């Protein structure tokens, strides 16, 4: 077999066998909420691949050139190289528009997946000890994703992105004391400058992706080291992980997810237009597009800028301009709270224990309230970023709409947080498994704060069986009410298997742990089909006849030992 030769060659040089066996047998929880992080990872891969292709054609320079190509309305006009090459990418490079639009859609999906992944981690308490560091790495990656998304769509030097850059420049300018220095250093002078586009480019294609790759590695290494957290369930303990093994089931499903993400990205990239810079036209400092909306993940900042009242004040005779509080303030406070959240919650609850079992959101109504508050707050900001469009569609005057949104942003988050808080308490108090099953009594219990301690009953009938396989390896299996779980790998000796079983299920009785000398125990069956039974019986008989040492694995036997 070719695999045997490859493994022998690798093992002789790098000693990879032990790591390889552990890696293939690594157990991943099967819950669907664990997919969001993977979607983000695969969107990132799509971004790297499509982005690398785009760099072959994009010219990051604002020096003037003449666009000469297939897009008639701009043919022969004097524009910047960045704008001309973006239009050329879209009309003159075959498949260029597909890759460009797929890149942009992948970016939107990427940030969305990160945010949903983070919500899952937040509401289930996965950030708690021992995973606070990975939360910090994750929040940093969110910040970098927002930054790189913004620099990405600001590079083509079109009118919409130029307007966005101007707003960011003004926002940085509003920082007290150092704002004018930071803004002019970053942009190379007073906006707009020829230095801007090349700097955006190198940050977008090298600096931030490089940091991002390093952080992804750290993120995944920490997951591998700490292993996955998991939802409560039969056999799920603080010292084990229950699910599918990496090889074969999980790997196949994960590659399916990867290709699914690619399918979505390319379908959107081919069929749904995004960022048509040729319609916005080239940047000019005296022009702006109307309406002007940023990509969704920075729209909260734009919404905050629209929503905040016209407040400017002076500190020691110096001006603190209007964008400072809504844009710099909201962003800074949000990210500081995100970074600090694991420690804030620990300080509030006094819970310093290490947690491998996740919470359902209802188990922490206070956290649900905070999350609901933040989500509602940012949802209102997001809606506000489109207030001009809403005003146009509904024919409500924009000033009246703005006043309504200003009231909503103050009131609505509290209302939603309160509803979420009492709903979580009602769910926790009663027996309802979903919102639709809530009864009046549950709701009363939720309002009064009376909570019934409903820990799952101790699992009475659990035991572990240990057995020896025909190839002299050892495995074990846990039996609980209605569930059986197999050890994820084969162990080379009995003690190793016993230690693993006792680690995964401390205090559970281990049965039938020593077969008589020379006898191989038949593997316990996991819902055996007739074919498996037949194969197992056949193998058992064959092995009993042929003796205990079987050096060659046969496909039928390894199938049966599962």
């Amino acid at each position, binding site marked *: 077999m070719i695999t045997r030769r490859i493994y022998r060659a690798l093992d002789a040089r790098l000693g990879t066998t032990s790591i390889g066996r552990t890696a293939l*047998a690594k157990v991943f929880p099967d819950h669907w909420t664990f997919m969001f992080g993977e979607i983000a990872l695969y969107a990132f891969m799509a971004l790297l691949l499509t982005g690398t292709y785009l760099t072959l054609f994009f010219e990051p320079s604002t020096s003037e050139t003449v666009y000469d190509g297939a897009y008639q309305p701009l043919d022969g006009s004097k524009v910047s190289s960045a704008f001309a090459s973006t239009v050329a990418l879209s009309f003159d490079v*075959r498949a260029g*528009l*597909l890759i460009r*639009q*797929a890149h942009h859609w992948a970016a939107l999906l990427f940030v969305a997946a990160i945010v949903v992944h983070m919500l899952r981690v937040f509401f289930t308490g996965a950030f708690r000890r*021992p995973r606070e560091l990975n939360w910090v790495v994750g929040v940093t990656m969110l910040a970098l994703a927002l930054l790189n998304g913004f620099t990405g769509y600001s590079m083509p030097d079109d009118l919409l992105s130029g*307007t966005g850059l*101007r*707003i960011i*420049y003004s*926002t940085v300018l*509003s920082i007290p004391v150092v*704002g*004018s220095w930071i803004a*002019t*250093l970053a942009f190379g*002078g*007073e906006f707009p400058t020829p*230095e801007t586009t090349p700097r955006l480019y190198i940050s977008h294609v090298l600096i931030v992706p490089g940091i991002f790759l390093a952080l992804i590695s750290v993120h995944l290494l920490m997951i591998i080291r700490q*292993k996955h957290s998991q939802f409560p369930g039969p*056999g799920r303990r*603080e*010292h*084990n992980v*229950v699910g*599918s*093994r990496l090889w*074969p*089931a999980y790997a*196949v*499903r994960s*590659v*399916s997810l990867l*290709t*699914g993400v*690619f*399918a979505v990205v*390319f*379908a*959107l990239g*081919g069929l749904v237009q995004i960022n048509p810079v040729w319609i916005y036209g080239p940047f000019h*400092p*005296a022009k*702006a597009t109307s309406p*002007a909306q940023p990509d969704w993940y920075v729209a909260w900042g734009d919404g905050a*800028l*629209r929503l905040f009242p*016209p407040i400017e004040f002076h500190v020691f005779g110096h*001006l*603190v*301009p*209007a964008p400072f509080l809504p844009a710099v303030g909201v962003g800074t406070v949000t990210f500081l709270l995100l970074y600090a959240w694991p420690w804030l919650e620990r300080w509030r609850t006094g819970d310093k224990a290490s947690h491998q079992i996740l919470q359902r959101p209802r188990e922490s109504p206070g956290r649900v309230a905070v999350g609901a508050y933040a989500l509602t707050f940012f949802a209102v900001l997001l809606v506000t970023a489109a207030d*001009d469009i809403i005003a146009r569609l509904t024919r409500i005057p924009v000033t009246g709409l703005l006043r309504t949104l200003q009231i909503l942003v103050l009131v609505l988050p509290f209302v939603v947080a309160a509803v979420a808080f009492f709903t979580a308490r009602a769910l926790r108090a009663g027996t309802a498994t979903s919102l639709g099953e809530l009864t009046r009594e549950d709701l009363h219990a939720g309002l009064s704060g009376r909570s019934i301690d409903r820990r799952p009953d101790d699992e009475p009938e659990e035991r572990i069986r240990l057995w020896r396989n025909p190839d002299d390896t050892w495995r074990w299996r846990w039996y609980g009410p209605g569930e059986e779980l*197999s*050890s*994820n790998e084969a162990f080379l000796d009995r003690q190793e298997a016993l230690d*693993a079983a006792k*680690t*995964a299920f401390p205090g559970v009785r281990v049965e039938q742990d020593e077969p008589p000398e020379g006898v191989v125990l038949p593997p316990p069956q996991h819902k055996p089909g007739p074919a498996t039974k037949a194969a197992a019986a056949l193998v058992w008989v064959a092995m009993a006849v042929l003796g205990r040492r079987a050096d060659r694995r046969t496909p039928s036997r390894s199938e049966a030992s599962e």
Partner: protein
Amino acid sequence: MSGTGPMSGQTGAVRRIRFAFAVTVLGAVGFAVSYGLGGNTQLLGLSLAVAFAGLAYGLAVWGRRLLPTGGFVEQKPELAASPQQRDLLAAATDGPESPLQRRGLVGMLLLGVGAIGVALLFPLRSLLSFRKPDPVTMLRHTAWEAGVRMVTPEGEPVRLTDIQAGTIQIVVPEGHTRDGDAPAFVVRLNPALLDRRPAAGDLGGVVAYSLLCTHAGCPVGLYEQTTGRMLCPCHQSAFDLYRDADPIAGPAARPLPGLPIDVDEAGFLRARGPFTAPPGAGFWSRP
């Protein structure tokens, strides 16, 4: 490729997977063909998406129907070592043989490394060319000064008679058509309706203001003649031109700076001086 097992019930799954992978091949061929035929974006995207979707579906069925899902448990040993081992590690790092024991030297080393770190921050200053003035001077100064002619963004000089009621004329300083801080607009107002006389003066109702919103610097491009208001398309600030461009709605807190104008011998509009205040978004050292 296909792992047809003896299990009953799997044959359906195997058939579906085989079909999905065949769709992938068709999608890939479709992609190559549409590329060869000129590269229609919709066809390229659709065929590539179909190809990947075939893989996604086939692998999902393979993973869920033909491979064991769930039912495995892996032990999760305590990560923390014993206190004794931690002590050994600590002793190895700062024990008697450790260089960290020489506190004085370590202090000097940190000082040296810190000094290098600070020294290496200096070249960051080069991000802003030394040939440019300091930020505050740059932010306060624009190319408008007495005698500078007003031209359209395309570079055409503007006559007073070109300014008609009902529309604004965007102007930039001659020779500085792409300056970020200089765009202004000229508009003809009804002098009888002026609530407040413009600080920069007017020429029989013709006034000029900075085009840049005092909130976040966007060009305030939308003129509403009936009310005499300028609206910003970015964050919906509104400025009342009949009250010297005071902000009346939205997040802008300061009026648009005015630009004093007059007419030269040839009848073209020109500036009589700089803006009445630094244009655009505010900054710390703004007067």
